[in-house]
């Protein structure tokens, strides 16, 4: 059977909900019509970071206006856990407090305001215990959530000793709040037989289903989790939505009423995990061109009070601390530190950005010590041919396009001339200094946990020729739904408009993986194509019978079925097929081939392929205040043969700005009591429309498509562009080097205050 023409795939189709979103018709969970009798749930929070609850008096809470019931830990019918893996995240604390804000009870009231108000009235006595808040405190006390892990090759100690040049350095890397515009929200409707319909803003409906069922003590089949769209996710709704769904479900079970819970912004920031803070320390040996001979790298990850997804996140940080560079002799050590803070979690890049930033700092440091342009250092270190093409975990970099991509960007951004202009500008200006940097990204695509690389889809063809499409992927704004619909439309040769995209639900496609690891379109696109192609195969066979032709001569194009000289409207064929008793519904199942990982040796092929990109950033800093602006950014990014170039460019632009925000204005601050001090947009500053580069050029790399056999040879695009933001941090570093002549102690985020301190070597009075 010949492949159909591509009419919808590769076209810049609008987001599936665009019209609904601009008219206000698109419904997020909080916009759904509320069922009669709805109660509102709100959590009560611990006010210490570490210790025990000695006494808890909830009488004022219970007596508050509108309060219907309280949820205490004893009210949980099943398992008190909402962790993704390790069983260490209680839905409600059992008395031990492990972070400030931890849920210690919840309130059910008639209105949300009443529930929120009442939740503050608890009288709680604590016995405080020692709290570790900082990386340093946790590290020096060997406080960890999971065992240390290492990977590498060669004898680094010997090779470092032999190296021509050697440097040591340290970089602190801040965390990041997801700041999805829609905070965590769940609404649960109880049904008969103890069934629960759970509307949950989650990237991982299956996990939420399991958590809700387990906490209620019912089989998984009794719980349906449904999500049409999220108002942003970015990883924050992968493992951390379940807790809120569980609380609402417990409340629904207790009262028989539907229950909704929506955290307000401050509580969302206080109660849910963020990107991991990291500290990177390196000892690197290199030749006179800056080519790395050996490197010893330690990555300390601040995981918070529980393991959550920290194991895989710290693994990915390790696996990305090579970025696009060959490290001949390498040792990477990782510690997964336990602190008495909220449990850090998935965030776009999943540890990868911290790894990439670490090695990019090494590149800048080497360049500064040799007094050469950092781009030259980066180029000599890129992966290359045989002998220089295996990662520290012994995977062959089989699809390396970084050298070519960087060369194109260097030319299109006019890098070399602008570098000369920067030198000239800096010579003329005493108090304004410019920096310029080009940084690449190589990002491994696949879940590092091999079993998660699977997806299912369900496709129905209805009697009027319209298509119902469902798959396990969730829509959080990234355009997954429209991409998969484009794929399905082309399988049948019909217009995109005939494909109805339906809410993700555990009742239609079970046992799914989260929409994460940039894998949404790769996995679900393939699963949906398999389902659609199965039905198309049945239709083709049926059409072949109608026209006494071979199945291989049946083509589906332009809303028609073409068999030799015969043409039949797609709908007519469908009608005839149903009459002839042909099944027009199919599931599709896909698992990523080739990948494997050996935990014991830290080697394998964890990734199906790599996505590449690079960015050039030019900044100007004000040496009096540390203020800066990003003058210009040029990006060249590889998405293979794009499924939808408009959507992909949007991901690149948005990812870059989010990465830039992480490394510039977004600063999380905890006080020594473990309280988050930056828990609102007034103190935690994500970029606004004026923080973006003055000139912003974004192009898609024109290559031969993905060398791995992905859906129409496209590449994943969700996470990789975030790391393009590192070019801004590197350019700021470069500007400080240009101002002072030495490598600064500039940590991330490079806030204006941090830049000023870096310029003045830590002293305002210089």
């Amino acid at each position, binding site marked *: 059977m010949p492949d159909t023409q591509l009419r919808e795939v590769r076209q*810049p189709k*609008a*987001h599936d*909900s*665009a*019209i*609904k*979103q*601009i*008219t*206000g*018709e*698109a*419904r*997020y969970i*909080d*916009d759904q*019509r509320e069922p009669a009798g709805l109660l509102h749930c709100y959590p009560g929070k611990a006010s210490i970071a570490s210790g025990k609850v000695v006494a808890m008096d909830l009488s004022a809470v219970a007596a508050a206006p509108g309060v219907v019931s309280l949820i205490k830990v004893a009210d949980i019918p099943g398992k008190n856990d909402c962790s993704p893996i390790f069983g260490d995240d209680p839905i409600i604390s059992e008395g031990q407090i492990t972070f400030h804000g931890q849920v210690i009870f919840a309130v059910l009231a008639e209105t949300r305001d009443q529930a929120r108000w009442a939740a503050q009235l608890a009288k709680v006595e604590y016995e405080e215990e020692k709290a570790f808040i900082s990386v340093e405190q946790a590290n020096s006390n060997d406080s960890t959530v999971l065992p240390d892990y290492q990977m590498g090759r060669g004898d680094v100690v010997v090779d470092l000793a032999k190296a021509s040049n050697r440097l040591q350095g340290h970089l602190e890397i801040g965390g990041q709040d*997801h*700041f*999805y*515009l*829609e*905070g965590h929200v769940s609404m649960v409707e109880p049904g008969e037989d103890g069934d629960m319909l759970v509307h949950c803003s989650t990237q991982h409906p299956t996990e939420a289903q399991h958590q809700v069922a387990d906490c209620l003590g019912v089989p998984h089949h009794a719980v349906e989790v449904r999500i049409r*769209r*999220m*108002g*942003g*996710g*970015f990883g924050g709704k992968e493992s951390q939505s379940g807790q809120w769904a569980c609380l609402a479900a417990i409340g629904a079970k207790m009262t028989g009423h539907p229950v909704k819970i929506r955290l*307000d*912004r401050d509580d969302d920031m206080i109660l849910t995990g963020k990107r991991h803070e990291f500290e990177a320390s390196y000892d690197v040996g290199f030749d006179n061109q800056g080519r790395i001979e050996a490197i010893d790298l330690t990555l300390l990850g601040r995981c918070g009070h529980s393991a959550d997804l920290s194991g895989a996140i710290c693994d990915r940080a390790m696996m990305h601390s090579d970025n696009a560079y060959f490290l001949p002799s390498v040792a990477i050590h990782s510690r997964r530190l336990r602190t008495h803070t909220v449990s850090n979690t998935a965030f776009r890049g999943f540890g990868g950005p911290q790894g990439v930033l670490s090695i990019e700092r090494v590149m800048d440091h080497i360049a500064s010590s040799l007094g050469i342009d950092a781009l030259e250092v980066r180029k000599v270190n890129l992966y290359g041919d045989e002998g220089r093409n295996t990662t520290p975990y012994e995977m062959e970099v089989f699809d390396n396009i970084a050298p070519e991509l960087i060369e194109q960007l260097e030319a299109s951004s006019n890098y070399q001339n602008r570098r000369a202009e920067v030198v000239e500008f800096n010579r003329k200006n005493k108090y304004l200094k410019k920096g310029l940097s080009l940084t690449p990204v190589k990002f491994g695509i696949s879940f590092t946990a091999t079993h998660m690389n699977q997806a299912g889809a369900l496709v129905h063809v209805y009697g009027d020729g319209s298509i119902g499409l469902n798959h396990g992927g969730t829509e*959080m*704004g*990234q*355009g997954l739904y429209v991409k998969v619909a484009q794929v399905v439309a082309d399988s049948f040769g019909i217009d995109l408009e005939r494909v109805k995209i339906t809410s993700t639900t555990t009742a239609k496609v079970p046992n799914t993986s989260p929409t994460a690891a940039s894998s949404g379109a790769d996995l679900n696109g393939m699963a949906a194509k398999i389902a659609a192609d199965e039905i198309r195969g049945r239709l083709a066979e049926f059409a072949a019978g109608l026209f006494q032709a071979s199945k291989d001569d049946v083509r589906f194009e332009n809303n028609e079925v073409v068999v030799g000289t015969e043409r039949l409207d797609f709908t007519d064929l469908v009608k005839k097929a149903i009459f002839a008793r042909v099944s027009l519904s199919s599931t599709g199942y896909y698992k990523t081939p080739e990948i494997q990982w050996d935990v014991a040796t830290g080697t394998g092929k964890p990734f199906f392929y790599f996505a590449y990109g690079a960015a050039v950033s030019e900044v100007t800093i004000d040496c009096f205040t540390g203020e800066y602006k990003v003058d210009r950014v040029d990006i060249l990014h590889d998405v293979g043969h794009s499924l939808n170039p*408009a*959507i992909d*460019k*949007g991901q690149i*632009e*948005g*990812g*870059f*700005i*989010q990465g830039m925000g992480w490394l510039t204005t977004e600063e999380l601050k905890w006080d020594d009591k473990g309280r988050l001090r930056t828990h*609102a*947009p*007034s103190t935690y500053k*994500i*970029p*606004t*429309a*004026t923080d*973006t580069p003055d000139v*912003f050029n*974004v192009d898609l790399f024109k290559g031969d498509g993905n060398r791995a056999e992905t859906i129409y040879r496209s590449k994943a695009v969700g996470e990789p562009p975030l790391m393009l933001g590192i070019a801004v941090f590197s350019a700021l570093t470069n500007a400080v080097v240009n101002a002072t002549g030495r490598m600064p102690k500039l940590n991330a985020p490079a806030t204006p205050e941090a830049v000023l301190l870096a310029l003045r070597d830590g002293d305002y009075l210089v």
Partner: protein
Amino acid sequence: MPSISLTLNGRSVSGEVETKTLLVDYIRENQKLTGTHVGCDTSQCGSCVVHVDGKSVKSCTMLAVQVDGSEVTTIEGLATGEELHPMQEAFRQNHGLQCGFCTPGMVMSAVDLVAGNPDISETEIREGLEGNICRCTGYHNIVKSVQAGAKAMGG
């Protein structure tokens, strides 16, 4: 409970409302117009922007009783029947959205910002959108949309 009368999306509405009811809650809960969103509750994010007497305001920091006698327009009142407002059309054509949660507020701010200024500069647009946060798009396509919308709206 005080009683208020206003024109909401061109239609007269009146009724009793508690003094403490926020305008955004009045719109979403009393009037069931859920296109106006709550993103931060503290007048920062701009998801809740509506027009009161033609000017953009953040409905999470106004009381419903304050709009007594006013004309209020929400995102649902922008289109004329099936025909999208030029600014809505511009957002659609220029891919000015991703998750869409900030979009209604963004569109409402944009309409007020460019009114009577078809040649508004990119800098003016960026500064004018300071009160609307978007976490997905990086603002690039939003700014393009607003520029196109301004042109389409004319002087």
